[in-house]
């Protein structure tokens, strides 16, 4: 076991100082392990085992409250007189406080003498807890000289200015209240002075500082700010002001009462809107919001589309760089070539929805050294280059021989899920009707093919399919033969008995029309009819017609297995019908035709089976 010592040794760390430390650490550990865990039931704690969990979640407060400490008799409270240091009048109020036991001892001598006359309690507390709430506001102060020099105004008397500053101080810059309470009455001195002139009212009206003037908040503010700014400038020259001071100064000088007034007018107009206007605004706002949202969405969609359309073309520089990284240019060329082939194949097949399962893809190039970068960039561009990704998919081509060897097959359409080759074989054995299936089974048994074919490779499957196809043909032919034989027998019988020539022709037509319904036919016929339910009447006729011809070369038809009848399979029925007319005469042609007809029938059968 590698100990820490070994590790340390390996890392080349010093070993000397560690030993005592470890010893120190060791000691608390066992204590920690056995330590009783607080706030957890003993049973739960036992479940923890030797080591408690790294994060123990338990409530600290779960434990019982500590027993109340009895610290002797109840504390005494008393109504303690106290003085608020902020008050200048020395008002003594009383509040309830714990009774002091030691404190009065310090004070009495002093207080006793002071309070002697009043004969009240000797000790008066000083409660300065709330002194901090006694706030005085800063106000601009000026001397008479300063006022005369800078602050004179035509609109404001010195008296009113003082009154204004006093009001601002009284109401701590609450302008709304200052304005509310602002009620400047020129002092009596003025009035009496003016009284001597005559009529008081007239005198007041002609006074430079008419009291009737109703000052607005803006007027008050403008005057006060003006004074403040001027005084500030006097005290601190503009150049010496620091940033904060200057901003204050700027604010003071830039106050524009007219603008303020206009702003307030607008504000009140906004408030006094009618319900309809408010509703209209609300409606418009929601509409605006909706439009904005729609615009945003549209923008986003457009952006995305633009990104797709304007996606940078595959950068040749990158591929050049990629080539530079690759060990062999030939390999790259090969890859390109294969890829092109694959693409053309894809186009031809009409797929193109995505890379085929067994086709080459751009990722196949990963193994070439240095192309990781390319892959990375490809991944980055994956979304925008969806169209190019298809084009880029390279496909490795195998020779037919290789395909065979590796058992590679291509499919137009893949069914979902996994299927077994043996299933396929089993399916082929089954025909639509039980009788037919039995017949196929009997024929196969005749040929010595086991029920379960070992190693059902695709090749075996193919061969088996061919075999079954041929079996089908064989069975068809047999059926037809039996039918014909039966007919022949009937005709023979009729010939034997009394007969007329007309009857002969009739019977010739009869099987054509009523071959399904004719009760004289054998069971096999009925089965065949049932089997051919889906077939058109024309087809039935066609078969019949063929049968006529084939009566001669029966044996030939049986044994003749045309290996390349795949070509005939591709032919349509429509092409068969006219060819039949021409083949009436020539037996060789008819022979061939019969084969094609058989194959046709088998094709239909195979179709049915597939269904």
């Amino acid at each position: 076991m590698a100990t820490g010592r070994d590790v340390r040794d390996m890392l080349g760390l010093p070993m000397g100082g560690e030993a005592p430390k470890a010893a120190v650490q060791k000691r608390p550990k066992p204590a920690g392990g056995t330590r009783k865990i607080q706030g957890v039931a003993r049973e739960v704690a036992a479940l923890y085992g030797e080591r408690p969990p790294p994060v123990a979640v338990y409530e600290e407060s779960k434990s019982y409250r500590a027993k109340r400490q009895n610290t002797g008799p109840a504390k005494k409270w008393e109504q303690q007189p106290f003085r608020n240091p902020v008050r200048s009048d020395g008002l003594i109020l009383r509040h309830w406080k714990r009774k002091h036991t030691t404190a009065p001892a310090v004070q009495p001598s002093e207080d006793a003498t002071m309070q002697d006359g009043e004969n009240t309690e000797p000790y008066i507390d000083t409660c300065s807890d709330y002194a901090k709430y006694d706030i005085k506001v800063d106000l601009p102060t000026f001397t008479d000289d300063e006022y005369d020099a800078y602050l004179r105004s035509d609109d404001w008397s010195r008296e009113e200015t003082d009154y204004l500053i006093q009001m601002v101080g009284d109401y701590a810059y609450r302008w709304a209240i200052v304005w509310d309470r602002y009620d400047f009455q020129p002092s009596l001195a003025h009035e009496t002075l003016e009284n001597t002139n005559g009529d008081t009212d007239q005198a007041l009206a002609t006074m430079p500082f008419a009291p009737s003037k109703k000052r607005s908040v803006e007027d008050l503010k403008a005057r006060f700010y003006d004074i403040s700014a001027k005084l500030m400038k006097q005290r601190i020259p503009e150049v010496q002001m620091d940033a904060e001071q200057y901003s204050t100064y700027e604010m003071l000088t830039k106050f524009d009462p007219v603008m303020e007034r206009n702003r307030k007018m607008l504000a009140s107009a906004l408030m006094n809107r009618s319900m309809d206007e408010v509703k209209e605004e609300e409606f418009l706002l929601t509409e605006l919001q909706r439009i904005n949202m729609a615009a945003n969405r549209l923008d986003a969609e457009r952006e995305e589309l633009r990104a797709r359309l304007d996606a940078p073309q595959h950068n040749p520089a990158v591929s050049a760089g990629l080539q530079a990284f690759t060990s062999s240019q030939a390999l790259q060329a090969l890859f390109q070539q294969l890829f092109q082939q694959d693409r053309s194949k894809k186009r031809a097949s009409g797929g193109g929805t995505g890379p085929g399962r067994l086709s080459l893809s751009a990722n196949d190039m990963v193994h070439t050294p240095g192309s990781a970068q390319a892959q990375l960039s490809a991944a980055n561009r994956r979304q925008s280059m969806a169209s190019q990704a298809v084009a880029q998919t390279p496909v490795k081509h195998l020779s037919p021989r290789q395909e065979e060897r590796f058992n590679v097959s291509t499919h137009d359409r893949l069914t979902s899920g996994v299927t077994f080759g043996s299933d396929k074989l089993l399916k082929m054995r089954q025909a639509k009707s039980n009788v037919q299936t039995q017949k196929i089974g009997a024929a196969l048994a005749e040929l010595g093919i086991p029920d379960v074919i070992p190693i059902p490779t695709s090749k075996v499957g193919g061969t088996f399919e061919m075999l079954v196809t041929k079996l089908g043909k064989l069975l068809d032919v047999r059926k037809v033969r039996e039918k014909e034989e039966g007919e022949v027998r009937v005709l023979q019988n009729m010939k034997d008995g009394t007969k007329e020539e007309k009857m002969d022709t009739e019977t010739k037509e009869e099987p054509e029309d009523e071959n399904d319904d004719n009760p004289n036919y054998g069971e096999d016929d009925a089965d065949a009819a049932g089997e051919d339910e889906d077939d058109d009447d024309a087809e039935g006729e066609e078969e019949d017609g063929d049968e006529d011809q084939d009566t001669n070369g029966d044996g030939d038809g049986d044994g003749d297995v045309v290996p390349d009848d795949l070509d005939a399979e591709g032919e349509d029925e429509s092409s068969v019908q006219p060819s039949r007319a021409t083949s009436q005469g020539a037996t060789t042609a008819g022979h061939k035709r019969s084969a094609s007809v058989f194959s046709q029938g088998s094709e239909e059968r195979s179709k049915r089976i597939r269904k």
Partner: protein
Amino acid sequence: MNIPNSSTAPAAGEYAGDEVSAIVLDPGYWTTRAGFAGEDVPKSVCPSFYGQRDTESDTQHYFGENAIHNPLGDLDIKNYWGSDGIVEDWDTATKLWEYAITNRLTGTKATDPTRNGLNDGTNTNGDAMEVDIDALDNQEKPLEESPLLVTEPGWNSAKAREKYIEIAMEDWGTPAFFLQKTGVLAAFASGKASGIIIDVGASHTSVTPVLDGMVLRKGVQKSPLAGNFVSNQIRHIFKQSAPEIPLTPHYLVKSKTQVDAGAAAQATYKTFTTPPTDSFRLNEEERVLTEFKESVVEVWPGPGRFSNGTNEEIAKNTPGRPFEMPDGWNQVFGAERFRAAEGLFDASAALTSESSPRPKDDQTIPKLVQAAVLSVDADQRPLLLGNIVVTGGSTLLYKFNERLNYEINNIYPSTRNKLIAPGSVVERKYAAWIGGSILASLGSFHQLWISKKEYEEHGASIVEKRCR
């Protein structure tokens, strides 16, 4: 670690509570409230009506609930408030307030041994007696130990304010005094420093804009459309109904028998050798009407006025409310119960007679609010409208707040208007007192009291300077 949030109690230093056993007196037209600061409910609530009995030698006053409802022959029931909402009868007001304070709070002082009659006969020398008289006067003052906070209406005159401090300092000998407006205190009771306070009391409705704990005097509005107005409206309804509805107060009824709705009362009545005065009967009738207001009267909650469109039809279809008079007469009141209080909001809907003319349009509550808001600086209007405190006993009329909310939102649709109406009846009725209780129990308030010394130095006018 206690993280402060809205639900945790503030630390002791934070809410600055420091009680000095101050007394808060909140006189109103209907009741006068008094109690110790720091408590949540006034301990002493006595009617502002008093009984006066004139005899040859002197006039006697009777205070308190028990006294004024006693049907004595020659008891006049009066109120010390004037019709303008300012105290008129100062002498009686002083006595009634003193009664309100001493009756339940401080208790009456024990009579000095020299006067209690126990030492009669042991009178030695008159000189000693004479000397003691001054000291006695000092001792007998009822509020020696308690600072006093008195509330005043927002429109109180400067003269009346000086009167308050004179009474407190000279008659009661309080060590410290303060005068605060009811509007501000009602706002404090709701935890607001700014707002519009709509106070619908008995005699007056007032709308007071308050900013940072100070009344904006220009915005203070008052009107006589309040509780008493509603009572008068009910009287009108009773008079105008097809068979006149009789209004018989309790004291007249000896016993009653049950009668069908609308049928004449069958009751036996009391007989008095000297029948009580008209003012007594009026006051007793007022009690019945109060009951009626509490149980029957409903304010049309909107939308629209009661007289608008189909509102009356809708009201008729709502279930009525029954009411039984003290003499047994009873009736179910349908749509007419909406009519009584409609005048508060819609002057044209008020029932009128020769004695009570149609109220002015600008006396209705919505107009008062509008006028109050208009007289406030434009910047403060949204703030104030966001804190509309509703207080006063008459706001307890059923659906009053719904209607008020509708009316205000109708006037100011573009601002965020919020009505703050305490749910509990006590808080609604005594909001001003509760605000005073909060204010006077604050440690930070210690420095605001007007002390006796200051009063002596500056005289009564100090109240103008300090209590603003």
